Structures are given as structure tokens and as C-alpha cells.
């Protein structure tokens, strides 16, 4: 990799507070191509707030997020282009069909040939035949797949995932893991906030523990799971 290539995702001194309530108290992180950073921590640690700041959905009180060398700012919408977000919410409109939802997303991202891209994305998640059904009529598993198609539609270089395995059955979880593996193999990056360590463990290249808005353990290469689980328990109760 050329030395002056900016990292896909960089966060410097991120803070988020209102008055004396501090959700995030100074977080630095760096994610390279092919990295998957797993962030774990107890409820209320500020993980979701951090992810929202990384995605440009929440403005930091201090610090900045730099995506491929561009600082995320309210007046620079294009800086958000390389980002994709997957959460337990689908971001879909129940009354529209899967294809209509995807076409709308494609138009928002100004992709060429939105209709064709929508069809292709749906095929990729194995729902090619169900594109014309309203999302309301789809099963939960299918909705997840449409949401995944929506996230992958724009070919994001950096995927942000907020508890993505919540409510997924085993096959769906496997499917998601497969996509993540392919994404990383194509030099994409990802940041995953998850409770379920076992789901992400074999994919994670680095793991950080967040407690009370800061790193209890800053991101470091992932040790074997049982070792980590012991350390995690110590961090929480120590």
C-alpha cells in the first residue's frame, strides 16, 4: 500500500456530551483496509453513540471522524459516501416493495442505472423473485436480507454494523458472516458493535472494550475467545 494512502476510517479524540452527561469521553480509533474492528462493552458504554458519530448521524462535541482522508462535516455530504450502515432497524419503507426501496436508495446515492442496481443487489441476497412484494409482506429474515442488499447496494468501503446479529437465525447469521468475509477480502473495512462475541470472533482482526465512554482496553489484535472472555469479565467487574 502506498505510504500516503489515508486509512479508510480514523477517529481522533471523539467526545459526545451534554452538560455533565458524557456518553463518549475521548475515543481514538484507526481501521485499515481488510480490518474488522469489534467493539464490545456493557450497555450504556456509549457504543451506539460512537457508531452514530462514525456514520455522521450524530455530531461529536469534540474530535473528528476522518473517512478516507475527508473529515465528516455537516456541510460535506460526499464525505459520507464510502460508509454503509447495518443495524437491527431496516431503514425500509413497509409500504413500498423491496425494489422500490432499493431504487430510492440508489437514487439517493446517485448511482447510475438505479433500477438495474436494485435488481442486481436483490439477486445477490437471493431474493430476486420477491422484488415486487411490499416489505410489509416479507418475513423478518427476508427483511434482513433486503436491508443487507440496501447496505451493499452502494458498494461501501466501510461498513458500520450495530448489533447486526440480533434476531438472526443461524442461516441468516451465516449469510451475514459470509458477506462480511467477502467484504474484507475485497479490502473493505468494518466496525462491528456487538454483544454476541461468538458471532464475530473469527472475523475480527482487532477488538476493543468500551466502558463508560472510553476504552477500557483499546483496540488490539483479537486473542483466542476464551482468553478474551476472561479478560472481558475482569474489565467489567474489576
Amino acid at each position: 500500500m502506498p505510504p500516503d494512502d489515508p486509512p479508510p476510517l480514523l477517529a481522533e479524540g471523539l467526545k459526545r456530551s451534554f452538560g455533565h452527561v458524557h456518553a463518549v469521553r475521548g475515543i481514538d480509533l484507526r481501521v485499515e483496509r481488510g480490518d474488522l474492528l469489534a467493539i464490545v462493552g456493557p450497555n450504556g458504554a456509549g457504543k451506539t453513540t460512537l457508531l452514530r458519530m462514525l456514520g455522521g448521524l450524530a455530531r461529536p462535541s469534540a474530535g473528528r471522524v476522518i473517512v478516507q482522508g475527508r473529515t465528516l462535516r455537516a456541510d460535506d455530504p460526499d464525505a459520507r459516501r464510502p460508509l454503509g450502515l447495518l443495524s437491527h432497524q431496516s431503514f425500509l419503507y413497509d409500504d413500498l416493495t423491496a425494489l422500490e426501496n432499493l431504487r430510492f436508495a440508489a437514487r439517493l446515492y446517485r448511482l447510475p442505472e438505479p433500477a438495474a442496481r436494485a435488481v442486481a443487489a436483490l439477486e445477490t441476497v437471493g431474493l430476486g423473485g420477491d422484488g415486487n412484494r411490499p416489505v410489509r409482506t416479507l418475513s423478518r429474515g427476508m427483511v434482513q436480507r433486503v436491508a443487507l442488499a440496501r447496505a451493499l447496494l452502494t458498494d461501501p468501503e466501510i461498513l458500520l454494523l450495530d448489533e447486526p446479529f440480533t434476531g438472526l437465525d443461524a442461516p441468516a447469521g451465516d449469510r451475514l458472516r459470509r458477506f462480511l468475509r467477502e467484504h474484507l477480502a475485497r479490502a473493505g473495512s468494518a466496525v462491528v458493535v456487538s454483544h454476541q462475541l461468538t458471532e464475530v470472533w473469527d472475523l475480527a482482526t482487532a477488538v476493543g472494550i468500551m466502558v463508560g465512554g472510553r476504552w477500557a482496553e483499546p483496540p488490539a489484535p483479537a486473542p483466542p475467545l476464551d482468553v478474551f472472555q476472561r479478560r472481558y469479565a475482569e474489565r467489567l467487574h474489576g
Partner: protein
Amino acid sequence: MGDWLRTAAAVAGKDLLVEWRSRTAMLSALVFAAVVLVIFNFARDATLLAAADLAPSVLWITFAFAAMIALNRGFALEKENAALDGILLAPVPRGALFTGKLVANLAFVGLVEAVTLPLFVLFFNVSLWHALPGLLGVMAVATLGFVVVGTLFSAMTVRTRFAELMLPMLLLPFMMPVLSTAVQATARLLAGRPLSEIWGWLRFLALYDVVFLTVSPWLFRAVVEE
């Protein structure tokens, strides 16, 4: 600039499509308008009050309340499944999201008004052909005013408790100058006065529109950016 327009068009198109699918808000607003007109008819003593005296007020009250039903749906649909986050994540200017919503809201409220006006003529036996161009002008300028403010406020109230009560409560003081001016102008027009007499009122409404159209997209950003 092109981005702004394209985004606004995409958002407006999506809103119109969603509403077309379920049609609930539109139908509710139309039925509501019809019911209000009927009630007004029975709630007056025709021997005491001529229809012509009451007509402008009835018309605009109907427009105002039916509009609020239409406005409520605007951001409510973005709340399900956190769809708004999906739009905010996209590389689009946030002000353009406001413009898209505004255009969609104008279409809905415009449709309600277009259906209500003939009903009004029918129920109240008012002849307004002579006044139609002027009346349409007043309707356009006044509606733009309260829909702009209503779109901004609905973005806020959807996140509060008692959202459906909160929107009328916040919006009514803002509708007051618009409604009273519109009613006065409408009364003059229905009475056959020339357009030149209501010119001052039209300018007032236009000024209201310009001020709030300028300020609202900017304030909208403050509303949606956490």
C-alpha cells in the same frame, strides 16, 4: 445545486409513492374536510347568518385542520424502521431532504384543497367563478406559508410524546397571521371586490412565505442533526 434538486425530487417522489400505496392520510384528510363542512352547515342558523358571511372562515378553517392531518404523516413514516437514518447517512444535503418533504406536503395539502373547494361551493351555495383566479392565488400563497412551517414543526413533533396534539398546538400561532389575512382576502374576493384591493394582503403573505422558506431548511438541519 443539481444534487439538491435531485435529492429533493427523489424524496418527494418516494413520499408520494408511499402515500399512494396506503392512501390513509389523504383519505383521512379528505373525509375530515367533508365532515367539517357538513357540521358547519348544521351548526349555524341560516336565518341569522348568511352563508356568505361565514363562508371564508369556514373554508380556511377546513383547509387548516385538514392540512394538519396531512402534515402529520410526513415524518411519521420516516420513524418506522428508522428510515430517516438511512437518508441522513446518504451523501445528500440535509436541506434537500426538507425541500423534498415540503414538495410532497404541498402536493397533499393542495389535493385536499382542490377537493374541498368544490364541496364547499356545493354545500354553501357560494358562487365563486368570478373570484376564482384571485382565490387560487390567495390559496397558493397562504398554503405555502403554513405548510413550510408545518413541515419543519412536524419533523420535531414526531419525536415528542403526543405528537398529533403537539403539532396543532405549536402550529396554530403561526397560522394565525396567515389565516386571518387569507380570510379577509377571500371575503373581499367572494364579495366581488377587484384583485387590486387585496394586493396588500397578498404581499404580506408573500413576505411570510419568503421569510419562513429561507429560514426553515437551515433550522431543519438543526432538528435532524443530533
